[in-house]
């Protein structure tokens, strides 16, 4: 099962390597990972997507907690949450395909962020499935380059 963990940690050198070292050392799996400073610049928030049985995810959560530099670990996929990824996709945009590319971008509410005679660079955000969907549609037209972020996620506020 896929789990999205939100981990609050000290914003200090070496902390990320404690987290990734824990995963590699114990054979846990990381599907994606994304970190940045929080409002409080002494802390970072790390969103980590992993898969595993409930027992493994429980072990992952406890092991993360055990790291001295980790302050809080929440499995936000346990309740309602929003998740986003972003991708930058450079796709062929020649005379014959330009209109089609623009239509697809529009459907996915993407943005053209760089233009060259033969290609557009497109920015899209959304869930991992949405990003995958636009990639699948653009692929036959001709994707030249792609860069994706890991997932970031936030629990929905309690109603």
């Amino acid at each position: 099962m896929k789990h999205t963990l939100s981990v609050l940690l000290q914003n200090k050198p070496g902390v990320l390597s404690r987290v990734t070292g824990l995963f590699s050392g114990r054979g846990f799996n990381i599907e994606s990972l994304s970190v940045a400073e929080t409002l409080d610049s002494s802390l970072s928030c790390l969103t980590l997507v992993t898969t595993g049985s409930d027992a493994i995810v429980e072990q992952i959560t406890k092991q993360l907690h055990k790291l001295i530099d980790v302050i809080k670990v929440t499995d936000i996929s346990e309740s309602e949450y929003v998740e986003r990824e972003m991708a930058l996709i450079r796709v062929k945009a020649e005379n014959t395909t330009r209109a089609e590319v623009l239509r697809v971008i529009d459907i996915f509410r993407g943005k053209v962020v760089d233009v060259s005679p033969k290609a557009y660079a497109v920015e899209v955000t959304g869930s991992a499935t949405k990003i995958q969907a636009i990639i699948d549609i653009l692929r036959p037209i001709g994707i030249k380059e792609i860069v994706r972020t890991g997932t970031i996620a936030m629990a929905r506020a309690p109603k």
Partner: protein
Amino acid sequence: MGKITGSEAIIQCLLEEGVKTIFGFPGGAVIDLYDALMDSDVNHILVRHEQGAVHAADGLARVTGDVGVALLTSGPGATNGVTAIATAYMDSIPMVILTGQVPTPLIGNDAFQEVDIVGITRPCTKHNYLVNNAEDLVPTLREAFHIARTGRPGPVLIDLPKDVVASMVEFSEKKPIRMQNYQPTYEPHLGQVEKACKEILKAKQPVLYVGGGVILSNSNEELTELAQTLNIPVTMTLMGLGGFPGGDPLSMGMLGMHGSYTSNMAVAKSDLLIAVGARFDDRVTGRIDAFAPHAKIIHIDIDPTSISKNVDVDIPIVADCKHALAAINNWFVSCGQDLNEVGATHSEWIETIKEWTRKHPMAYADEGEVIKPQFVVEKLDELTGGDAIITTEVGQNQMWAAQFYKFNKPRRLVTSGGLGTMGYGLPAAIGAKMAFPDATVIDIAGDGSIQMNIQELATSKQYDCPVIVCILNNNYLGMVRQWQELFYDKRYAATVMEVTPDFVALAEAYGAVGFRCDKTSEVEATIKKALEAVKKSTVVLDFRISREEGVFPMVPAGKATTEMLLV
């Protein structure tokens, strides 16, 4: 208080934490600190290899419960310490390791004797630090000691760049340490305690399974009270030996791969397993699905990651063992039941257990004048009244020590359990002897392991720190040979020690005393001579034992613990 040098501040911190003795080995990166140590009240022991320094500090920590401290130089000094740091980490030993580092402007430039020791030791320390700024020095040291000794203890490493140590720092007053991100749970959840107690009342065939956590938390008295008032048989892991008196009728000895027949059978048949400060290691459980198959499991541990890691637990109690056991004992005192009656309901179970021991006691075959290693350990036990501090090397020697010495008190067995580090015993014995100069300290050794840190004989000589090294010499890497005998058609690949030094001559070369013994009838006299001689000098005993003696019972790796090979 005004400013003092970083070196002085480090020494002040050590004194503030109650550290009297540290073990180390100098080098360019720590020369300032050594200079300051020379005039300080901290006693420094110069070892002969950095691994020895860390093991010695670890030995001191295990017998006292205090934080052991080692000081190593940068680069090779630090890397030489890594095996010993990992040893302490696996057994949750409170330690602070100080390593020198190249000056901050040079870090990352492959400077002379630069190594990323913080990176290297990240997975084998409880926590580690690189002190980048002078103002962080004192707070970091204080935090390191706090982390090392609280919660589930462990080694903490502090990497000290030379310029930071040489700078002037403020020595602020010590305040209680509160860390937002680190707050171990000491007190048990009382609801869980009650659940556990009710389960204990219901059990007909309960077993207490005791691990190193009982020793680390000094809860042997609470444990003994629980076992004795409710008449519950006790089995211990290698790390738990001494947590309950080995000579008590309720003690079944060790469990697991080389555990007693009784212990392994009792766990297999029990209906309630009460795990206290133990972690269900594979050497204990054998084939995991066949471990305690009929039992409900109560698990007390201060480290939540230990719970339900290897086996599913029915009633977890995250707490310090001492607090949890005290709460359990209290519950029983006030539960309104006649506890003698409760204890009496286990009589039939205890009878079954006694029957197992009658059928298959810990035993070995007599070979006349050919010395049996088990006999040597039994004699050591007898002649020291079971009250010596026993350190061990690793291999058959370690298992025979665990099986045949009766550890009646905690902190008497000092052994590398989790990592199984050959070369641990001698430096650890020196550390233990430094802590308790009046104690009899014996390293039960193998001919292979002792050669891994034998240079520490010089340390014991230099500091007048006499210990007995009792080599059970089989001229083999015996434990590996035993596996080859049993599972590899007796193909003794790389386990025959074709060249072994003359240990008696070697002892003498180091200024120690050496005795050789190759007859059963002379074992007792040899040990007596050693116990006399050790009052003045370190003694090396070379017992030429039955070469192909095995350690039994043995549960082959991956088998259920009831599938024991017996003598």
